[in-house]
């Protein structure tokens, strides 16, 4: 797939786990159960509360502004090939193209991966057909630009400048080019909404974009925008899963503290080693 991207810093170290042990199996089973349970209970029609995420409300505002000004929008789904962050980006793209099709506002989608390009084209075509205006879809607006990180950046910079873009959306995996895109968007006066699971790039979006979706608000986006019961349920399930992680860590902290005070209790408190990688 696509090669290494220059990103600057790597996250904490990643230990490639080859096969699951029992602890991992049980932990993941619990998390999966919590998420699926909430999805299915939401599908049965349970009302769910989701807090406000200001950055995501801004998406509709940005679409509205481009429509009023009669200028195009740009959506960049990030640099990565087909992976989970890109899938989420494409789900957000679907929401935005549907709005674009509804208001007949032009949206340009430059991509950095052939497969992502293919799916993005399909999503856009689909969205225009669903709104009953398939003839408004311009296949040239969904483009493959380059799978080279900085050639892609140079192309998006060119489009942002030349097409007089009014709203710039950046969702997906971004690396060192995040600031190039966001700062150029700012310079051309576009209203910008951005979100990425790449933690190193979030600060650059915060400084240069108007609205930044932080951390796992990125994965909450499609639920928040579509209000689909499945997705809302999943979002609540994710909260429960995170709560489970917090409980495990709290128990671990208490145990570690007790062990530090009374090393002799190790015989009773050795559950910690189950999680030892």
């Amino acid at each position, binding site marked *: *797939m696509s090669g290494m991207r*220059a990103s600057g810093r790597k996250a*904490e170290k990643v230990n490639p786990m*080859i*096969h*699951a042990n029992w602890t991992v*199996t049980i932990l993941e089973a619990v998390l*999966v159960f919590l*998420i*699926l349970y909430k*999805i299915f209970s939401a599908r049965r029609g349970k009302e769910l509360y989701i807090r406000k995420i200001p950055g995501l409300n801004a998406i509709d505002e940005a679409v509205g502004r481009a429509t009023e000004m009669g200028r195009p929008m740009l959506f960049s789904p990030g640099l990565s*090939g*087909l992976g*989970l*962050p890109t*899938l*989420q980006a494409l789900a957000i793209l*679907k929401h935005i193209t549907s709005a674009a099709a509804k208001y007949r506002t032009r949206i340009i989608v430059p*991509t950095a*991966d*052939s*497969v992502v*390009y293919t*799916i993005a084209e*399909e*999503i856009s075509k*689909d969205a225009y*057909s669903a709104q009953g205006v398939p003839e408004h879809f311009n*296949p*040239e607006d969904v483009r*493959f630009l380059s*799978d*080279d990180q*900085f*050639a892609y*950046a*140079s192309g998006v910079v060119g489009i942002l400048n030349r097409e007089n873009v009014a709203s710039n959306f950046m969702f997906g995996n971004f690396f*060192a*080019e995040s*600031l*190039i895109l966001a*700062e150029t968007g700012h310079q051309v006066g576009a209203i910008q909404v951005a979100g990425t*699971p790449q933690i190193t790039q979030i*600060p650059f979006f*915060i*400084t*240069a974009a108007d609205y930044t979706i932080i*951390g796992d608000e*990125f*994965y909450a986006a499609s639920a928040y925008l*579509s209000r*689909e019961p*499945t*997705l809302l349920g*999943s*979002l609540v399930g*994710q909260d429960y*899963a*995170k709560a489970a*992680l917090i409980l495990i860590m709290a128990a671990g902290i208490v145990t570690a503290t007790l062990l530090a005070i009374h090393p002799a209790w190790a015989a009773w408190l050795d559950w910690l080693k189950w999680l030892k990688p």
Partner: protein
Amino acid sequence: MFTGWLIKPGAPQWLWALGVLGDFLIFGSALFLLLQLVPVRYRKALVVIITFLAGLIYSVEFFVPADPKTGKNFLTGLIEQVADATNVVYAFALGLGIYSLFRFHGRNLARKRSGWHNSSAFFIAFFAMMLAGFWHDLRPSAMSRNTYNMLFDGIVAALGATMFSIVGFFIVSAAYRAFRIRSAEATLMLTAAFIVMLGQVPIGAYITSSLPTAGLGSLFKLENVSYWILNEPNMAAWRAIAFGIEVGALAMALRTWLSLERGSFFEREL
């Protein structure tokens, strides 16, 4: 067909190419005809099943305990093949990307739209770089290597490094504009950035170089403060964000695998 029986290893490359083409046509048409037999109402189900089965390969391989002697289970051999196959299949999609580029720039040229000369520059650069690559690979000589190096160093590497270095300019303008003490949040961000920036450069180390190198005073040396920020509070915050992101990704994976993500990508009936 051809490649399996008729053409044996050692045959000339062009014969292999013909054989691959022939096999592709035979197998491709067979699969195509087979797929026509699938009734329209089962198409969606077929896609759902294939998605689920594909997901099973990696997940079952991960969860089934491995033979302690070899470190492998019954699927480990298969996933190595699947990983290669995925890479190969993915690589064939590059043609679509190239098609997209050619369609866009080709139309620019054909209709003499404004900027058409840029599109011709695109084509020239594309073919020059591609041919130089194959030339130096297939017919290595001083000439082909020089040409390849000239184009690679002079265009791809140089423009890439330049585009990358533009971040240096933009970091200055973004920091200047955004780091104002407008709110508590902005002030916190500014403070951390300020300390870490100073702690990383020689001049920062110089400012506090009069502090002792050991003991309590050394804690306040700028480079140590900056190191502490990066390794204690920053690491904890990073870990907390990452937990959320990872759980979000896991949920996304689950929904995709089980095709619960209805309406997230496609709506049109098949």
